């Protein structure tokens, strides 16, 4: 690749974040458009400068309509990643970076806008779901019980991982959210006792093991190094962005759970993570801070293992030692509060937080953060991740 075409993130934007059903005064499409405009303003660009859009997971806010709404003169790239719940968030980033690095487009915006009072709740029971026949007759509809079974198996195979470790992931996210005024759970501290007092949703998951349900919009502007030079913000480089799925994964835990035995209790990222690090030319020890898609605490533990921050089965101890905590941990994670406590915008808000860390703008800023891992949805197919860095 021509080094001048190296993909960079040059703008991030968002709307307000609320509880689900909290934005009822304007359309979901408008919320997505506002996020795009906010990200463009951050970058010092206008809609005339962009020529591509990317999104994921059946985004209802169509790129061609976004083009018209914002007055984008010529669209050269529009793509959406198949399937996978929030698994495609970094996959959309991968498509955007591929487009600009290949020279197919100059400036691509990845966006997500959701107002769940107006649309359907994500992951909800639906008749048309692939392989739904193998889950619905058994009362299995929602991501929480689906990924609870994966977590239960993981804890069975690694009995050193205990319920308190799930709780520590949730408490860590809440502590970060309480430093972030934009977080939905700002001003609502939570202790491990509070965690254990919360009701079960699907064992081993309690209420606080599950992400929020939110309304809000997010957008990220991607261009290449040459174009990024004169823009308002210092560019954040995308060292690698990948998506993929392991052998035999299929619909995985979001339906019949027939992924291979060796990969059952995993994020579906074991192979992809190795390729991601190789492509970025770095290893887990080089990562300063991580934004891990935290739909469920148990999947965050598996991600710490699958992305090489600790040994298989070692995530409970890693968390108990305070390694994920800001500021003293080896790897502070989900520094905005993540999806457990900031907002659940299908991975886009945690990607924005990764950019903030590298710009030095986080409310839980990691000292001299140079490399950040961001993941998409875990245990989905495809799953995705990216490594971003300060040049």
């Amino acid at each position, binding site marked *: 690749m021509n080094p001048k075409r190296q993909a960079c993130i040059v703008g991030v934007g968002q709307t307000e974040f609320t509880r689900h059903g909290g934005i009822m005064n304007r359309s979901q499409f408008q919320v997505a458009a506002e996020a795009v405009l906010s990200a463009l303003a951050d970058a010092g660009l206008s809609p005339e400068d962009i020529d591509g859009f990317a999104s994921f997971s059946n985004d209802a806010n169509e790129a061609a309509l976004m083009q018209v709404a914002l007055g984008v003169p010529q669209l050269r790239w529009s793509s959406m990643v198949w399937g996978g719940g929030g698994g495609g968030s970094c996959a959309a980033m991968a498509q955007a970076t591929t487009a600009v690095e290949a020279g197919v487009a100059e400036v691509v915006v990845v966006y997500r806008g959701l107002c769940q009072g107006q649309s359907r709740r994500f992951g909800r029971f639906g008749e048309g779901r692939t392989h739904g*026949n193998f889950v619905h007759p058994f009362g299995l509809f929602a991501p929480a019980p689906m990924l609870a079974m994966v977590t239960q198996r993981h804890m069975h195979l690694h009995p050193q991982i205990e319920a308190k470790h799930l709780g520590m992931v949730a408490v860590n996210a809440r502590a970060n959210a309480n430093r972030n005024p934009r977080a939905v759970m700002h001003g609502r501290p939570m202790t491990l006792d509070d965690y254990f007092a919360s009701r079960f949703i699907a064992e081993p998951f309690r209420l606080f093991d599950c992400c929020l349900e939110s309304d809000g919009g997010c957008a990220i502007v991607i261009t290449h190094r040459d174009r990024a030079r004169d823009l308002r913000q210092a560019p954040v480089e995308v060292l690698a962005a990948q998506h993929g799925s392991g052998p035999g994964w299929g619909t995985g835990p979001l339906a019949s759970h027939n992924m291979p035995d060796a990969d059952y209790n995993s994020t579906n990222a074991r192979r992809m993570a190795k390729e991601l690090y190789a492509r970025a030319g770095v290893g887990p020890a080089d990562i300063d801070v991580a934004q891990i898609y935290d739909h469920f605490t148990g999947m965050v533990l598996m991600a710490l293992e699958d992305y090489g921050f600790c040994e298989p089965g070692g995530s409970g101890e890693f968390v108990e030692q305070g390694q994920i905590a800001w500021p003293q941990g080896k790897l502070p994670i989900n520094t905005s509060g993540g999806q457990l406590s900031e907002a659940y915008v299908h991975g886009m808000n945690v990607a924005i937080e990764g950019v903030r860390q590298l710009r030095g703008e986080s409310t839980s800023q990691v000292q001299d953060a140079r490399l950040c891992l961001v993941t998409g949805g875990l245990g989905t197919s495809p799953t995705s991740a990216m490594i971003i860095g300060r040049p």
Partner: protein
Amino acid sequence: MALFDSEVLAPHPNFDDRPFWDACNRRQLCFQHCADCDTVRHPPSPVCPRCRSLAAAWKPTQGQGELFSYTVVHHASHESVQAQLPYVVALVVFDDVPGARLVTNITGIPPAQVRIGMRVSLWWDEIGHGRFIPRCEPAAAGGPDR
């Protein structure tokens, strides 16, 4: 009486999985195998991923198996299951079909006593109009063991 009293949860057989549900309605749990190389595939799929044959054979299991993982569901994400809370959703691997997992329910045992690795047996839950759903319960003491 059916475990879940709701027509909403009934399967809607399609091209790929109709033989599975037809067999269920005869109270036989049949998994799809490749007719050429015998590789099992579940959920049903039109092509063998090993030898790419399009020919399928449907082989019945004897219905004895082991619990691979489970969850006790305490929150109804759909009104059709509200009355049944808490209930157990589980993955069962049958002894004679080691390559497939069935999402099912475990009944006949308090949810707190369910354990990974426990032995289970198949039973048939009639949901009306001649349709049957495969569910499991703890294997009878002294029953067939592996």
